[in-house]
Every structure is written in C-alpha cells, then in structure tokens.
C-alpha cells in the first residue's frame, strides 16, 4: 500500500501544489499572478451570490444525477447479476459499449431525440402531458440528463459488482420463507448492498462534480456548474488564480460531502445494530 500511496500522493501534491498555490494570489491578466499571498479570491467567492449559486447548482445537479443513475441503474444491475441465461452478456455488452461513446458524440443524438418535433416531444404532446414542445437543452434538466449519460454505464457496472457479492441463496431463502419480492428486496438486498451502494453513489456523485463536457454541451451555455465556470475561467479569462480558488473550493466541498456520508453511514449502521 505504501508505494501506491506515495505514487498517488506525489502526483496529487505536485500537480495541485502549483495550481492551488496560485489560488492565493491576484490575477494580473494573461496567466500572470501577483507576488504576495492574499485571500482576495476566497473572499470574493464567499461574498458573491453568483459563485455561491454556482456551487449550489453543481451540488444539486450532481446529486440528482447520482440519484437517478442509481434509480435507473440498480434494477438493471440486479437483472443482469441475477440472470441465468446468455442474455446477461448481451445486456452487459450494451452497457459497456454505451459508455465507450463519448458524450461529445452522444449529444447530437440527444438533440435529435429531444428536438421540438422529435420522438419524445411527439409522445409528450400526443399524451397531452405538455402543451408546447419541451426542451432539455439550456436548462438544469438537460445537464442532469447529460450527466446521467456520462455515469449510467459506470453506475450499472459498479452496482453489478456489488450485487455479485451478495449470495443469491440469501434472497431465495427469504422468498422460500414467504417474503414477497418487494419485502425481500427491502429487508435482504438493500441492507446487504448498502455499503456498496454508498461507495458507488459517491463515486458517481464525484464524477458528476468534476464533469464539464456534459454540463457544457447540454447546459447550452446557460447552466453554470463549477467545472464549467472553471473551464471558462481558464480558457476565456486565463485567470489561473481564480480558477485555482474555484477548484480548491470544489475539492473541499466534495471531500466534506464524502466524509459526511461515510460518517452518516457509520451512524446508521451502528443504530441498526443497536435496534436488532
């Protein structure tokens, strides 16, 4: 473990050092930075509602995407994991292949599908669910959909390997003893897969927090998540310091959320142990 820790540690420290150190300096334009360390960038972030709102949108869209990825992905992962025919291979292959196609390409497909006279809108209009064509481009719904396309494949594979570790015999035992399918899922499957689900959803959440391609392409330039803002700050404004500040805040936020969930999970498990 030690060598691994050293390799990753060096890569993190070295690469982030250059960047984060800059977050304490003032931008002087064209990538040049001031020579005295100040907290200006951080103060600016926490006193400016625009940046705070960006942080909130990032957390919200990432959490929603992670939640819906779990919601769509878990039943699929379960189906594949428990399938006894060769079809499972085909279903798995579908997931893997879908993940191999970059969102840069998929976004063209999404535009066609969600077009004003595309399939989805024809269906929604036909069923009188909406009265004028609904678009997912340029709003937060689109960003969540884009993020899900980025993470769903990973999510399914991740959950698949979690469900693999739960012996099928336990579920069957529960059903033989008269538990309904639903109760079996709730009382046997869910608790057993909870640690795996937590790790998996955190990974998905983290992926979303760092993703910029989906948000940039489906946000239509109207939805600013922190990664999109960082990309703009670097690419358009060439303000490395402010970008460093934004990434530092993103990094700390994600670390805090991860620590908090691990902590909550522990509390939850301890509580359960006391009850049963």
């Amino acid at each position, binding site marked *: *473990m*030690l*060598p*691994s*820790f050293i390799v*990753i540690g060096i890569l*993190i420290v070295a*690469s*982030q050092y250059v*960047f984060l150190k800059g977050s304490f300096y003032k931008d002087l334009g064209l990538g040049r930075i001031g020579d005295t360390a100040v907290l200006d960038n951080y103060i600016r972030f926490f006193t400016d509602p625009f940046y705070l709102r960006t942080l909130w949108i990032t957390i919200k869209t990432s959490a929603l995407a992670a939640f819906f990825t779990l919601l769509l992905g878990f039943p699929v992962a*379960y*189906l594949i994991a428990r399938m006894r025919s060769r079809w*499972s*291979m085909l279903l*798995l*292959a*579908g997931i*893997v*292949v*879908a993940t191999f*196609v*970059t*969102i*840069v*390409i*998929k*976004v*063209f497909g*999404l*535009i*066609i*599908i969600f077009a004003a006279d595309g399939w989805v809108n024809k269906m929604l209009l036909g069923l009188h669910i909406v009265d004028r064509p609904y678009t997912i481009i340029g709003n937060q719904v689109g960003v969540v959909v884009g993020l899900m*396309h980025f993470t*769903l494949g990973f999510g399914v*594979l*991740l959950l*698949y*390997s*979690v469900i*693999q*570790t*739960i012996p099928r*015999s336990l579920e*069957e035992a529960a*059903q*033989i003893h008269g538990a*309904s*399918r639903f109760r079996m899922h709730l009382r046997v499957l869910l608790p057993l897969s909870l*640690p795996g689900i937590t*790790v998996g959803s955190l*990974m998905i959440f983290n992926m979303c927090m*760092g993703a*910029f*391609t989906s948000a940039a392409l489906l946000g239509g330039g109207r939805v600013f998540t*922190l990664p999109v803002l960082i*990309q703009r700050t*670097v690419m358009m404004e060439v303000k490395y310091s402010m970008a460093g500040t934004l990434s530092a805040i993103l990094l700390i936020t*994600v*670390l805090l959320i*991860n620590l908090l969930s691990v902590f909550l999970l522990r509390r939850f498990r301890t509580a359960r142990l006391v009850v049963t």
Partner: protein
Amino acid sequence: MSYSPTNATDLVQRRNSPPPRMGFPWGRLFHYVYCSLSYIFLLAPMVVVVGASLHGGEFYTAIRFPPVEPSLRWYGEIPSSQFEALGLSFLLAGGAALGACVIGIPAALGIVRARLPGRTFISSVFRAPLQIPSIVTGIAFLQLYYLFGDATGLYFQGTFLGLYLGHLFVATPYVIGTVTAILQRFDSRLEEAALSLGASRWSTFRRVTLPVIMPGVYAGALYAFMVSFGDVPISIFLTAPGFVTYPVELFYGMENDFNPSILASASLVIFFCLLVLLGMQKLVGLDNLLRSGSR
C-alpha cells in the same frame, strides 16, 4: 468462500428449489419494463448516431436521422488521423488500466486491512483525483511538467509518459473503489486462517484474497479503460502535434465543422467494442469473468 455465488452449494440449492411462483409475476414484469426503459434511455442516442452514420445523401454538415439513401460512403471517408488517434487511445487506455491495477490493488488492501490511524483520510486522498475537475488536472499537470522541466531539463509535455501519468492519475481511483467495495464485505478471517495454517503472505494473497477481489479488479480495470478512453479535458493539454487521442481528435474535428465521417468512426468504435466483448465471451465468458473470477 460463501461470497462466491457460483460455489457448489449455491448451485445445488438453485437447481433444487426454483423461486416460488405465486400468481402472475407482476413484480417481475414491472422489473423488465423498467429495465427496458433504462436501456432505451441509455442506447437511444447511440442508435441515432449509428443510424445517421449510414446517411448516404449529400454532404450536409448536420446529423440526419433517419438516414436518407442508406450507404456506407462515410465509412470510406474516415481520415487516417482518426485511426492513428484510435490506436493511441487504445494503447493509452490499456496501459492506464494495467497501471491502475498495479497501484490500486495494494492501495485498496491497505485501506481496508491495515489498522492505520486516519484511514478515512487516506482513502479520501486516494479518491481525490476523482474530485478534481479533469480540466484542472490537465492544466495542473502541464504546469507541473514545465516547472519540472525548468528544474531538471526533462520535459514531459507532449510525451507518451506525460500523457500516461495524467490518465493513470484519474484511472487508479476506480480500481481502488471497486476493490475496496468487495474487500469491505469479505471476511478477513479467511486470510487469517490461511496464514495461521502456514500459508505465506504471498500465497494467501494469491489463493485467498485475489480470487475474491477479481471481479472488482476486472470491473475497476474496465472503468479505468473507459475513463481513459473517453477523456477530453486532460488530454487536450497533454497531447502534442501528431500525437492526439481519439476523443480530442473528434472534439476539435467538430469544433469548426461537422463531418459525418465522425459518426462513422464512432460507430466503428461501437462495433469494434462489441466484437471484442463477444470474442471475450467466446474465449473466457465475459459474464463469468466479471461474475466470480474464482476459477
């Protein structure tokens, strides 16, 4: 070995006691419909991409679906630079997956097994590359390389090693994540038992631990491969002229213009992956590989 679902007792039990059937299986039907919807959501954009790549009409700079006059003409128009980029991407992703395993497996063992203070902190550090936005990673590495080059005269930017380190950096946490997830559910007493029976540390690892974590290793390696293969923001900064990964080639290929040959080559990647997966299935059985790995 109670955690391997394909062990003998499990199989016997499965054969002898089929799940009880009580009336019409509404739950099961609902499950299938639900999964179909998930698949439609996931695959529909790809159907459009593959479909549009078959469009045989005039040059049109925009995606057209369903295709008019289906033909394979755009497949003949794929520029050679895209194939070169594909070669580099496969090499890079394969290397990243391998390297991620070499670093990731011991790291996961350490996180779960070692009774160290601050374990949560260490595991957060290992997961940190996932939380750094990829674009920041790209620029941070580039600046690091320039700084390092100024100090030592060894410049990594635009070299395979430089690009590889960036990809390894983001790929490793996936292996750590999947292996950790399995290890946390695996009874360490089995290892202790093996050790107390006189097995060496290495053979305990090889015979007891490794078979159990293999599905996680395969899954992690697969993610590592996929993450590296699909990356745009890191590679943008670490590639060099004549040395470009496939997604970056597409990203810039589409920036100024749009040519259906991009859809064609994306479709080729889809078919190639299907072919590799089917080949793996024929040779070793992909589902078995990911399922137990304990044979």
